[in-house]
């Protein structure tokens, strides 16, 4: 019997395209948001510990590394929110058709960038300009 010419490991051969980029981005932003959750808890605990501790915590939160995390966190929030809504519609059985999935994918990606920029301006002043 002749061996059919079939791919043996399709997961090694998938073409990189924006659909799987958007998919892995949902995961990456989820991980970033989980890290930001610990910053949120730290911020709340500091606020509960009085004005001095709170001021010290704001200085820590304003440090370059945490600030970078929170900027990434803001984008992650926007993207995970928009793409998450997309996922919820899929789960309900809507929006699977390729043209629609393409459109909503672009909408989530571009919408996230725009929303991040808007929130950056709105939140820029709060938390010592962290956002």
């Amino acid at each position, binding site marked *: 019997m002749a061996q059919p010419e079939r791919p043996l490991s399709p997961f090694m051969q998938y073409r990189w395209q924006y659909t799987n980029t958007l998919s892995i981005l949902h995961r990456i932003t989820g991980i970033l948001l989980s890290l930001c959750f610990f910053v949120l*808890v730290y911020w709340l605990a500091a606020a*509960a510990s009085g004005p001095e501790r*709170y001021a010290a915590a704001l200085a820590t939160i304003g440090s370059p590394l945490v600030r970078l995390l929170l900027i990434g966190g803001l984008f992650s929030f926007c993207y995970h*929110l928009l793409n998450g809504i997309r996922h*919820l519609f899929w789960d309900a059985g809507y929006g699977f058709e390729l043209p629609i999935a393409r459109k909503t994918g672009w909408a989530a990606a571009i919408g996230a960038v725009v929303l991040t920029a808007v929130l950056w301006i709105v939140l820029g002043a*709060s938390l010592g300009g962290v956002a």
Partner: protein
Amino acid sequence: MSLRSPLGRVLGLGSAKGGSGHWYSQRVTAVALVILGCWFIASLALLGAGAPHAAVVGWLHSPFSAVMALLLVAITAYHAQLGLQVVFEDYISDKGTRLVVLVALKFALVVAALIGILAVLRIAFGAQA
């Protein structure tokens, strides 16, 4: 008739019977977080420049804000646990390491959530700034 192989049954392979519950919880918490997340971003904006301590205390003194903050902390921790669990299950193939990491993840998120909840309650029931 079972479609599972005898070997697979003996080795305990296959469904752990908890998949649909995990899946459903992730969606329900996601819907809740759409509301809670937007509320939190709006609240942050309303705290004003530098988010002064008095503003944060005043904010969480409102029963509505306190309840929303408690929900945000608890449901975010739950949703993060469900999501990170899937990530770790996908990428950690060694069963022992995976178990240790998944238990550590649960511990970390439960501890963080309780610290956050206690902080919100302390502010909500504490003195007005």
